[in-house]
């Protein structure tokens, strides 16, 4: 085997392994999971009066305001002096 072939094989293997490791499966079509995420978001909207309130409550609910690709998401609103501020909560079962 020539060194150029060995290098190409190493490159392809590295690229494939990197792609497989970076791969994040999309959320499964779990309706109950989506509903649960929606209920978490509703609970956060119900109890939050401002952004710091929201961040604290989201942490308590094991939810995140910076959802990852695999998270189930739902909208939240916090009103601030007549302006609606929307957030997206991410949650995993």
């Amino acid at each position, binding site marked *: 085997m020539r060194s150029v072939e060995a290098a190409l094989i190493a490159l*392809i293997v590295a690229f494939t392994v990197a792609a497989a490791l970076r791969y994040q499966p999309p959320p*499964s079509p779990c309706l109950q999971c989506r509903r649960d995420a929606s209920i978490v978001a*509703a609970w956060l909207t119900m109890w939050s009066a401002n952004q710091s309130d929201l961040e604290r409550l989201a942490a308590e609910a094991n939810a995140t305001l910076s959802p990852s690709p695999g998270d189930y998401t739902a909208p939240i609103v916090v009103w601030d002096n007549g302006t609606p501020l929307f957030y997206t909560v991410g949650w995993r079962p």
Partner: protein
Amino acid sequence: MTRRRGQAALFAVALLSLAVLAYLYAVSAARVSIVYHGEAEWMVLLATARHSLATNTSLDTLMARLKPVAAEQGVWLPPVQWIVYRSTNGSGWAYTALFYNTSLGWEAYFAASARYTLLGTEYDGLGGLWLVYNLSYVHLYKLPQLAYPVAIYPEPLNTSCSRVYRAGEGEWLVKLRPPCVVRDKWGIAVLGVP
């Protein structure tokens, strides 16, 4: 011979890599996409009604502000109409915002109410007059997905002119020095004495 083996190995590895990548792509693309609209979107409406009560801004005005922002953010809102009921008397107040869609049979509401009774007066060491009230304060959140409303009992906040003591679930003992307005964390005026 060695050269051919090397080429064969390279070909095999490339083929295997393609198979792995094609599998990952197929798994990603084959998933069924389900869009769920429900509790979160309805609660957006109820939170808007609560802000309307807190800021004394008409619900029509706030809904008109909400809709374009929601559309911009890609948030679906239930197609509803709304009506607001308010009542006040000497012993309390009540507020209800009802969201409904008669053709689809959807209904949700936010209701808040406070009932208070003057128990007596007190003088502090500086001769200041304090009024002592018994207060009941509750919020109700009814979503179409739930059979019963969710009741929560927000805490009226202490201010420089008031002291709030918990007396039970949704029950408070409030001492205040007029003029004073006791609010909750959303800014809703729970109890005010001019």
